[in-house]
């Protein structure tokens, strides 16, 4: 636990100092939301129908490009071997990075949500339900994103490879369910009305975390 906490705090400190991931995320999310706003300003549409896909597509793509430096930075700065030499398990590295990514992305998503409500005047839904959905969706996103970031960091064109590997898996697991549940919430549903989607997302959270735990030794190893 000590190693996880140490790596988590280090990641948070570095992230808020060099702001690489934060800047990537903010820039992309504002651009995506603004693009949708202008695109939909010229056609007739129902806000309730498009709100949920816009929110999750913004989270999904902004988050994806922000995850890229997680392991790449360690390789580029040559610090990865320093971590591997320490008497800690590789899973501590994975969970430390996962927790820091989860927290930073979650904060950025909440900021994006605020931007969304500024651009699109839409009735405020059940916010507790929406936040819970965002939290559990982000757990799965950060869990899988982390492991794929570790795999792709060694590849050339890693910035391209990360989305190529991440999109097919996340889209058909967490994102589709999150969009469906969020749509219902915008239409007035509450958390207990979307429990099927919540359970589905939670199941994938557990699966992705387990995959990360099981694969990280092979990815960071020899």
């Amino acid at each position, binding site marked *: 636990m*000590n*190693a996880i906490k*140490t*790596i988590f705090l*280090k990641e948070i*400190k*570095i992230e808020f*100092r*060099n702001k690489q991931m934060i800047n990537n995320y903010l820039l992309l999310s504002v651009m995506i939301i603004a693009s949708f706003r202008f695109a939909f300003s010229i056609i007739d549409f129902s806000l309730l129908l498009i709100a949920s896909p816009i929110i999750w597509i913004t989270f999904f793509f902004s988050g994806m490009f922000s995850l890229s430096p997680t392991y790449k930075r360690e390789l580029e*700065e*040559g*610090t990865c*071997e*320093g*971590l*591997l*030499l*320490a*008497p*800690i*398990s590789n899973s501590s590295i994975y969970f430390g990075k996962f927790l820091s990514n989860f927290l930073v992305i979650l904060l950025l998503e909440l900021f994006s949500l605020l931007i969304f409500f500024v651009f699109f005047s839409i009735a405020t839904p059940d916010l507790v339900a929406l936040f819970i959905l965002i939290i559990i969706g982000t757990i799965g996103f950060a869990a899988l994103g982390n492991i794929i970031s570790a795999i792709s960091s060694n590849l050339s064109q890693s910035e391209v490879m990360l989305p190529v590997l991440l999109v097919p898996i996340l889209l058909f697991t967490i994102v589709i369910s999150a969009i469906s549940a969020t749509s219902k919430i915008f239409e007035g549903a509450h958390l207990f009305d979307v429990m099927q989607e919540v359970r589905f997302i939670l199941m994938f959270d557990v699966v992705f975390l387990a995959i990360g735990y099981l694969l990280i*030794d092979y990815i960071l*190893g*020899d």
Partner: protein
Amino acid sequence: MNDNILTAKNISKSYGRLKVLKNINLNITKGDRYILYGSNGAGKTTLVKILSTLLYADSGELSLFGEIIRRHSTKQIRALIGFMSHQSYLYNDLSALENLNFYANLYSIKNKKERIENLLKEIGLYHRSHDRIGNFSRGMKQRLALARALLHNPDLIFLDEPYAGLDIRAQEILNDIIIQLNKRGKTFFFITHDISKGFEVATRSGILSNGQIVYETKREKIDTFSKKYKDILLREQN
């Protein structure tokens, strides 16, 4: 009592079709200061990474502190090893103090505040403790990398091209630290390509050529060793 700290038997390693190390046999005993010379691409870094458990050999057997090294069973052994590479393993966005604090936490070091302060004073960077190391010169980073490698008071210290980027004063500090720590029972294994560096502090020297240790000696005169090294380098080129 068996004083063997490191025993390598028939260690081989290939990258694809390229055989980098060929049946390396090596014995390091407690208190040794072993320096291995070799030209660029001779396999030095691969060897030191295998010996320090960062990489695994394709074949052969490595024992550290009497324990045979196997995948996923190196956690305790790693606590006894220090490694200073030509890469510093330090984070540019953190200060010198934060970097050492981070590694001290990973190694669960007791009295870390005192230990870190002492090391920073020893390497002459105490006055820059709170500065981000992204602004440090290569030499300063190397000195801090040494402090990082020594932080957990390891018994066996690997140094990969430790003199790279160090000015003469910093090289002297490094040699002094090596000798002082060696007197306290620490064992050193270092690799370099530069014959003019490190020979004076070594108690044993070897030459790695084309993935094999082709020559080993104890306390030979530098002129004799230097001549031997040049001959081997010439043979490599032909």
